[in-house]
């Protein structure tokens, strides 16, 4: 640990003085007014008097002061060793592709070196060893103060091309200022010229080399296509321990299609990872990426060459070649068209364009220009697949992998003892390895190869009796494959089976892909998207220039030709870093340099903020304690705050517990209710009646009633409704015990039930037997003693002053509770009548009254409504109006 401003520590000497000052100054007393102060006089002499600040508070304050002093002295932890040498410091940074994987670590190390130079007051210069994006050769900056250089260093990015050692050495040779060198190395030689580079560095002054023990850079080479997989080599500088690598196959939109692992053996430079993918997926491959830290070296871009495999089809019998089920090309088309591009035409036409596979179905190629053309194409890498047939059996030509015996062999049939042969399993090492042979595939005719020593090696598939079914021969870069059967079902069941499709796919996958129109003299391909140092595709830098098509595959990555995709949208060519790169080779340390690990020294930490922050916290504690000592805040305040916090936490669960049952909440609005009798007619009258009454009440009074609610006794909660209308229907049946209990509970807690027998006084009404029903229904109800409703009752004057209480019928007695029962504020819990009020109140959708009143008249209707209003007011306000009756008496009693 070092101090940036050590002289400030002198202030620590003053701490004992502070201690003494704090000790002799007692805390200010709290002022209290107290009438009984006379009783307190003289008491302090007897009490113990801690007039001084308690020692722990003193210690707290002195500690805080000490923290402030030490913090202002700016201590720095892990500051590392001092820089060697004097004069300006030259910071040499490798910023090629190999540095990208651990770039942040390198930047931290470089910044650490700058920190040290800054503390030593030395100027710093920077030399990046790779040509920059504009193509400029490596060049050292002039020496400058550390803060300025820091921003330059922050702008430095790893490149996607290799380090230029020669140019860097030249730049070092041009450095004439002496000083010392700090070299952040990627550990690779990166081509020729490393030795000169190292010597140039050593010539300047003492060198500190920051490097890893083994270079960590890994490079993905160009993949190779095999029959069923894509083999990707991974190379690195040899390491003493085995290295596990994982390779991801990614599609154009960045999805990972496959992940394969490989292990690079100790002291080995290379391992191969084989990516096995179905052809459909393989055709969507856009790049292969090394899992781990991203860099340009860990990405291989795949262009059209890896995907497009056009197949040309030529049949011997061109007239019937596409006849369904029997044509020679019928099954081939069906098998290949889903995943390959098929081309038709004669051999010459087909070979005039790029072609990956040429399939000749029993088509004999006679000697001549056509034969030469095909042979030349095969030698250059074409895959020729031939199917046997009567023509081939009769006239074998020169483009066959094996010499055929004349004629064909018939297996089974009326004149033969032999049976059609099944296929034997595919041998390991053939492209068909791993395919399952269906047991029902039989071969009844075939052409036979002339047995010789090479035949076994040339055979990829056999029949059950060992005779070859598929033979092949490599010719130049290409290959000729022969199926000893016809491509239709004439000679075998093979074209009918799924195996045929799989075999053809494997063979097509084995062939070499073709790029777009590779015209050597075509227009140059401009860079479209290029990789940056971290392996991300982006716009090309200014220095990037176009390339001729054939050069793309061979070019070495450089600022002019960064790795990436070149060419137009429909014909991208990939330029990969690995194509023009030597295998990575570990570089020796710079002679005479002191070597430090890159991440070895932990980053230095400034302690000042922490110390000052702690001091601040201590001062805050001191403030609280001082306030507490003076009694300026109370335990109650703390308790209140704690309670508030506890409340905050308690609120959320409380919310969860108050679950409201589903449906509209009946507590939100006042509404009347009627008891559902089960009789649709009666229920609709009740509904319409209460709706009409609610409207009337809303128009005539300050009460606001919502639409009436139907309630089922014993199921619904009745407590939301001030008034419940119960039309007695003889057919409804007596209410259940639960219903009776609910009604009793409702009435006992202030509810009002309006029971309506709707019979207009018995006999004359439309509801016969309601009286008897009323008796049975109300058997369990706690009905109080009843009395006829008179004009003196509150119900007769709750809103309107009423003389009678008509409904649809008039003049019948209405019964209410007899006595003024104090327990329920003299409010009758039950009102029993037979006037069929709901019918009188009912209004239909057109606003008409559907039920005529008896005997009739507008006045009766109005009176019925007025009774309803009084009823609602009675239910809502209780005996309020009853009290109003006594106002004169009350005033008199209160009088003086």
């Amino acid at each position: 640990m070092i101090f940036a401003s050590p002289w400030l520590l002198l202030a620590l000497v003053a701490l004992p003085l502070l201690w003494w000052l704090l000790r002799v100054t007692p805390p200010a007393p709290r002022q209290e007014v107290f009438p009984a102060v006379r009783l307190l006089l003289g008491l302090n002499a007897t009490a113990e008097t801690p007039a001084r600040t308690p020692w722990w508070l003193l210690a707290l304050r002195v500690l805080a002061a000490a923290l402030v002093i030490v913090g202002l002295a700016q201590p720095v932890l892990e500051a590392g060793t001092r820089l060697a040498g004097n004069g300006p410091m030259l910071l040499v940074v490798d910023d090629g592709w190999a540095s990208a994987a651990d770039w942040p670590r390198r930047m931290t190390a470089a910044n650490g070196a700058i920190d040290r130079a800054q503390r030593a007051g030395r100027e710093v210069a920077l030399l990046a060893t790779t040509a920059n994006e504009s193509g400029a050769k490596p060049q050292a900056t002039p020496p400058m103060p550390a803060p300025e250089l820091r921003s330059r260093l922050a702008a430095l990015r790893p490149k996607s091309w290799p380090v230029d050692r020669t140019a860097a050495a030249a730049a070092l040779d041009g450095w004439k200022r002496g000083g010392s060198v700090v070299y952040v190395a990627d550990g690779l030689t990166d081509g020729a010229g490393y030795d000169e580079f190292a010597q140039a560095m050593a010539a300047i002054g003492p060198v500190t080399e920051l490097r890893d023990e083994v270079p960590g850079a890994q490079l993905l080479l160009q993949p190779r296509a095999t029959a069923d997989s894509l083999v990707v080599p991974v190379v690195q500088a040899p390491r003493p321990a085995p290295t596990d690598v994982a390779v991801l196959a990614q599609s154009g939109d960045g999805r990972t299609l496959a992940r394969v692992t490989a292990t690079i053996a100790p002291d080995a430079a290379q391992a191969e990872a084989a990516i096995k993918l179905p052809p459909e997926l393989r055709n969507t491959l856009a790049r292969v990426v090394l899992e781990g830290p991203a860099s340009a070296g860990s990405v291989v871009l795949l262009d059209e060459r890896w995907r497009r495999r056009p197949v040309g089809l030529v049949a011997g019998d061109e007239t019937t070649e596409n006849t369904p089920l029997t044509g020679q090309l019928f099954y081939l088309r069906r098998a290949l068209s889903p995943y390959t591009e098929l081309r038709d035409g004669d051999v010459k036409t087909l070979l005039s364009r790029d072609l990956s596979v040429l399939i000749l179905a029993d088509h004999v190629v006679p000697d001549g220009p056509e034969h030469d053309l095909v042979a030349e194409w095969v030698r250059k890498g074409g895959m020729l697949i031939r199917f046997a047939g009567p023509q081939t059996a009769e006239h074998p030509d020169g483009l066959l992998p094996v010499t055929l015996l004349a004629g064909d062999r018939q297996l089974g049939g009326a004149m033969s003892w032999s049976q059609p042969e099944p296929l034997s399993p595919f041998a390991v090492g053939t492209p068909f390895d791993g395919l399952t042979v269906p047991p029902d595939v039989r071969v009844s005719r075939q052409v036979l190869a002339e047995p010789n020593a090479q035949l076994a090696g040339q055979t990829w598939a056999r029949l059950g009796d060992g005779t070859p079914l598929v033979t092949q021969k490599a010719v130049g870069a290409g290959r000729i494959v022969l199926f000893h059967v016809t491509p239709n079902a004439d000679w075998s069941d093979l074209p009918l089976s799924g195996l045929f499709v799989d075999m053809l796919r494997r063979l097509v996958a084995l062939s070499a892909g073709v790029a777009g129109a590779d015209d050597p003299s075509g227009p140059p391909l401009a860079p479209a998207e290029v990789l940056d140092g971290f392996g991300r595709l982006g716009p090309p830098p200014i220095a990037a220039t176009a390339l001729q098509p054939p050069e793309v595959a061979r070019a070495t990555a450089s600022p002019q030709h960064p790795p990436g995709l070149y060419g137009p949208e429909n014909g991208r060519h990939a330029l990969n870093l690995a194509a023009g790169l030597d295998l990575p080779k570990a570089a020796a340390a710079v002679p005479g340099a002191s070597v430090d690990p890159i991440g070895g020294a932990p980053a230095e930490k400034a302690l000042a903020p922490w110390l000052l922050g702690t001091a601040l916290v201590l001062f805050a504690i001191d403030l609280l304690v001082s306030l507490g000592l003076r009694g300026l805040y109370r335990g109650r305040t703390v308790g209140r705050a704690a309670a508030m916090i506890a409340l905050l936490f308690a609120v959320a669960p409380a919310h969860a517990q108050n679950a409201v049952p589903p449906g509209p909440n009946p507590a939100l609005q006042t509404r009347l209710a009627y008891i559902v009798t089960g009789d649709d007619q009666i229920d609709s009258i009740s509904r319409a009646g209460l709706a009409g009454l609610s409207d009337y009440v809303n128009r005539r009074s300050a009460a606001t009633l919502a639409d009436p609610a139907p309630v089922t006794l014993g199921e619904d909660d009745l407590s939301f409704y001030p008034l419940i209308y119960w039309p007695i229907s003889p057919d409804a049946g007596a209410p259940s015990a639960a219903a009776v209990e609910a009604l009793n509970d409702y009435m006992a807690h202030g509810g009002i039930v309006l029971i309506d027998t709707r019979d207009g006084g018995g006999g004359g009404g439309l509801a016969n037997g309601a009286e008897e029903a009323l008796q049975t229904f109300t058997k369990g109800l706690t009905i109080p003693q009843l009395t006829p409703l008179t004009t003196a009752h509150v119900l007769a004057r709750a809103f309107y002053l009423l003389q009678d209480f008509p409904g649809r019928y008039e003049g019948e007695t209405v019964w209410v509770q007899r006595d003024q029962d104090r327990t329920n504020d003299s409010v009758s819990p039950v009102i029993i009548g037979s006037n069929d009020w709901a019918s009188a109140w009912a209004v239909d959708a057109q606003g008409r009254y559907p039920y005529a009143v008896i005997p009739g008249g507008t006045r009766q209707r109005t009176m019925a409504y007025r009774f309803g209003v009084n009823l609602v007011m009675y239910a809502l306000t209780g005996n309020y109006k009853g009290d109003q009756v006594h106002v004169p008496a009350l005033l008199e009693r209160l009088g003086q």
Partner: protein
Amino acid sequence: MSGADRSASALDGARAARRAETLGARLPPLLVQAERVASTVAQGVHGRRRVGQGDSFWQFRPFLAGDPASRIDWRQSARSDRAYIRETEWEAAQTVCLWRDCGPSMRWKSRGQPVEKVARAELLLLALAALLLRGGERVRLIAPGTRALAGRHALDRLADELPRTGGEEGLPVETDLPRHARVVLFGDLLSPLPEVQVVVGRLAAIPVVGTLLQILDPAEAALPYTGRVKFQGMRIAQEVLIPRVEGVRDAYAQRLAEQQEGLAKICAAAGFGFSVHHTDHPPEAALLSLYTALAPVTGRR
């Protein structure tokens, strides 16, 4: 004082009187026991167990020569041969003199207390007055220029008078009290004991008897402060710095107990009653204790 102020203060007085009445409403009308007949005692409702002026029937006695003929009770005389005179019981009212300390030390409440001591004292005074008035007694404030009040509106007048009196500190100096009256003194009674002794002795010499009620704030009773506190008195510039209040709490409690014991002793010697009331206790309790102190004791009859 402007008219508006006067009407406002009258309103306040009426409100205080109502409040005191409701407080006293729960106790039966207080009948102060008048043990001695005093010339100052005006006609009241106390039966004096002897013949005199009054409304209640006391006895019939035979007509004696010299009695005016108009006093003969003819209805009683008609029942026998002799003439009888109807005699009534002498009824008299007691005057109760009330006083409350309204010095600065009374106008104080500790933190968290709802009422000042003086507010409680006035409430109790008015409640007691209401009780007494309902019992037919006469009440007066111990202050210059006051006189005994009785009747229906006496409580309101008392409540009006209350803010105008007072202002004096310590115990009442006026001794111009009717003999054999009853005295009720409300105050915090924190003065030195000799001062109290002098006043009580002077009162007892008139002679009057009565009750002292010490009204204390709970903070004065318990000294709930902690830490280093500088206490300031209210009457004189008294200050005392207590470094650690917790340390002197017991000593303070003992001093307070001594003060109260001394007060009780002084009161007992003069035939006075003494009780203590804290402002955090309900006033009904204090009123009840005053009631029992003033009410006639059945056993002494």
